[in-house]
């Protein structure tokens, strides 16, 4: 009897255990299955090499090079200390530094432990020679960004850096990952989506120590797409050299379709500094540099244009029929408005000036008169037609809009009425007006092209797909008036005593306009904007020198070098 009771209790306990098994294995099976999968499967991302950036002739400007990293396999290493000492000798590093790297916890046990990144080719040979004496040391290669021309193209190429937390949270839905390198400026930033490619990955089965057991699946990385630019690296070099380290910018463009042939800015920086591993010192130097080398002065900064803006003034007055080509004003050296005297840059005055003379001599008094006749509203209206006050839409990131003042703007922002004296300042490109070099270039190119506007661009093709097709638009200004201004601009360079005579190049017909913009300091910004040949322009350019002196001398001389260069390269 008691034995049967014992048997019954044992049977009940067995069924309880079976119930427990049922609960674990049937009811909660899915939960535990998932846990067991995450236990054993690891995903190892394989970075894709970024796409290259090529100039218009296919010469690589930004490429990838191989970085040779010294790695450590723990299992293979017999005598770690001794090996590291030998290695330190070859690499000329301190043994402590290597030991620290070797004992650092790696992100995943199945990945090789990198103890020294990006050693030179010579060091690679030396390490390979003594590999036999250093078991467990191997060299692994990894693609690394290489900016072939360094600072020469830095304002166009931009640079890459590790993705920051904010961008990561924003870009995660697009497949960006932690520690990924992302474009931080220039084309690297603007076209990051095309350049980065698709990362590959390996699905690894690992054991309880996280050691790799087998590869379950692998997807090869898809390298990023190549960008083919409109830039000509040879002309770019010339532009860079023409700046000669002076702060400022040079942009050269084909006015017919908007292709940018060169875009240089100073101060520049070497983007390779951001690539070299563990180079925090170099990066900090660039970031803390007071001259802000990361700022692209060609598109990212707005300045007073000074006299180069007279091109727009002349056209707005002509096209709105406030003056004609024959209208003449007398310059006596100054202009009186409401008891205030506005000076021309030449003390003795220019005498009677028609619009062509006014442009050629950059006569302030002529343009004071024109400005007063035309009025702020029409000038603002035409300024808008030329694209001032808004980005040109060039395919580079971080373009500045500048500032095109108007009566309305002043009322809203300054809570003041527009004064006539401000119109006079406006008429010579001073006052509230702020423009970027590329906006000035765009204006000059439009004039050069007889009123056909094309958006400036640098990227011609992404792999084989043409993206930089010119989109022609006509500016609402009569071609007749444009021709008058063009003649004035030709006189600037080619006429006797023209303000831009220093830009003259033997054998070339060049038109242009200088500008010397006053700033809040003693120093002036120097501008030159022009094109060549004067009748059928193939090249338009802008030279801007930040606090760089007079447009007629410093900027015009710089422009001359570039016109010569373009001629030698066959563009003219």
């Amino acid at each position, binding site marked *: 009897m008691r*034995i049967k009771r014992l048997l019954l209790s044992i049977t009940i306990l067995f069924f309880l*255990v079976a119930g*427990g*098994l049922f609960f*674990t294995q049937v009811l909660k*099976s899915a939960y*535990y299955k998932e846990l067991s999968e995450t*236990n054993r499967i690891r995903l190892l991302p394989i970075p894709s090499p970024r796409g290259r950036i090529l100039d218009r002739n296919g010469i690589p400007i930004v490429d990838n090079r191989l970085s040779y990293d010294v790695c450590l396999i723990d299992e293979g290493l017999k005598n770690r200390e001794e090996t590291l000492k030998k290695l330190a000798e070859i690499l000329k590093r301190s043994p402590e530094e290597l030991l620290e790297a070797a004992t650092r916890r790696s992100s995943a046990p199945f990945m090789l432990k990198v103890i020294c990144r990006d050693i030179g080719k010579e060091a690679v040979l030396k390490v390979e020679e003594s590999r036999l004496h250093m078991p467990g040391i191997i060299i692994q290669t990894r693609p690394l960004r290489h900016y072939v021309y360094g600072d020469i193209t830095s304002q166009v190429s931009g640079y890459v850096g590790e993705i920051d937390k904010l961008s990561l949270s924003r870009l995660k839905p697009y497949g960006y990952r932690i520690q990924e390198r992302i474009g931080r400026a220039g084309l690297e930033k603007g076209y990051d989506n095309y350049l980065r490619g698709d990362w590959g990955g390996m699905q690894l089965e690992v*054991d309880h*120590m996280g050691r790799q057991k087998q590869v379950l699946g692998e997807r090869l990385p898809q390298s990023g797409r190549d960008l083919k630019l409109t830039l000509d690296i040879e002309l770019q070099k010339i532009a860079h050299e023409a700046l000669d380290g002076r702060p400022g910018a040079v942009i050269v463009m084909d006015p017919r379709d908007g292709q940018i042939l060169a875009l240089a800015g100073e101060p520049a920086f070497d983007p390779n500094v951001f690539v070299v591993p563990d180079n925090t010192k170099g990066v900090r130097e660039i970031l803390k540099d007071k001259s802000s080398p990361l700022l692209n002065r060609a598109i990212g900064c707005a300045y007073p244009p000074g006299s180069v803006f007279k091109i727009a003034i002349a056209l707005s007055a002509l096209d709105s029929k406030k003056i004609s080509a024959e209208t003449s004003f007398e310059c006596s050296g100054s202009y009186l408005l409401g008891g205030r005297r506005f000076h021309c840059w030449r003390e003795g005055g220019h005498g009677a000036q028609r619009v062509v003379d006014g442009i050629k001599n950059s006569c302030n008094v002529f343009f004071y008169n024109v400005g007063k006749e035309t009025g702020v509203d029409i000038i603002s209206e035409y300024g808008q037609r030329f694209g001032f006050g808004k980005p040109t839409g060039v395919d580079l990131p971080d373009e500045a809009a500048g500032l095109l003042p108007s009566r309305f703007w002043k009322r809203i922002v300054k809570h003041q009425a527009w004064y006539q004296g401000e119109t006079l300042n406006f008429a010579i490109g001073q006052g509230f007006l702020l423009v970027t070099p590329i906006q000035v270039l765009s204006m000059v190119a439009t004039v050069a092209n007889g009123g056909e506007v094309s958006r400036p661009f640098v990227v011609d093709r992404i792999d084989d797909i043409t993206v930089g097709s010119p989109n022609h638009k006509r500016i609402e200004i009569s071609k007749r008036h444009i021709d008058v201004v063009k003649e004035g601009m030709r006189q600037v360079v080619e006429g006797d005593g023209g303000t831009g005579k220093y830009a003259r190049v033997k054998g070339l017909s060049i038109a242009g306009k200088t500008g010397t913009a006053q700033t809040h300091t003693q120093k002036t910004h120097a501008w030159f904007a022009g094109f060549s040949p004067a009748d059928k322009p193939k090249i338009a350019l802008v030279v801007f020198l930040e606090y760089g002196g007079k447009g007629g001398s410093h900027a015009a001389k710089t422009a001359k070098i570039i016109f010569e260069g373009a001629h030698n390269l066959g563009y003219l």
Partner: protein
Amino acid sequence: MIRLGRFDYTLVLIILAIFIIGIGALYSATYQNSTQLFDGATGRQIVWMGLGFAAFFLIANVPYHRLLSGAWLFYFICLIFLGLVLVMGHTRGGATRWIQIGSFSLQPSEFTKIGLILLLSSYLSNNRVELRRIRPIMGVFLLMLIPFALILIEPDLGTAVVLIPIAFAMLYAAGANARYLLYIFIAGVATSPIFWSLLKDYQKQRLMVFINPNIDPLGAGYTIIQSKIAIGSGGLLGKGWLSGTQNQLNFLPERHTDFIFSVIGEEWGFLGGAILLFLYLLLIWRILRIATGTQDLYGQLLCVGVATMISFQIIVNIAMTIGLMPVVGMPLPLISYGGSSLLNTMIGMGILMSVSARR
């Protein structure tokens, strides 16, 4: 010799079936890692089983009444060996449980279980013992507590704990006053906090972890978490023999000994586990049928002792692999790797066969 007709073939077949399942699981558990510990484990286990069957047939042929006279002697020999373990034992994994004899290592605590069953059967079947009174009952607990304490300080909590249900079940089957047994049980539970202080740190930690495995997921709780993942991920039909990822990728510690059921659960699923449980239950039924088939109290008590020993180990072992009980060192009978446990179980089976053949 026993006449062939009186031989319980069913019992032998059940034992063989369970053993074969165990060999399959052991092979799988040691399949990937050919470390020294695992090298040839399956082969050694088969050799041990050969020895086990030899002992089984030998003991089955001894009339079990003869074991009566040797019961006290065997008990004392067990105590001496337990003492020897403490003095000159062989230590593995922080516990001193083994005695090295030649190339074999024996675990005396395993044989103590059989020793206690023999002694209690002998003692309780003695007509002069008055089981309606408290003193002889207390005497039985004293006989149990001496080896219990010796095993506990080895430390081997699992084996020590088995002795308790053996004593209770045998007293109950022998007709002891059930009320006294209940009082003693309550008193035992009430005084258990005293035992808490006697436990080693790692044992305390295991018991704490049982309440919440996540307090130490990479330490003491690791085994139980990984075991639950293994068994749970096995699902209804399992991942297949040699295909359990938790097992083959080494996530399961102790998977060839105490946690071998995790391997079975992962690779054969709920179905495999249920079949194994059913086979075990069949074994227990078979044993207790032998008990109800004999009029001899001594024979009956032997059956009850062995049945309790085996079923307690099965229940606790499987329950701990799915987190229903705290982790204690307790082998799964006939399946966990280990010669002493296997031999001890087979000796118990031999005694049962002897009882069965002489009804």
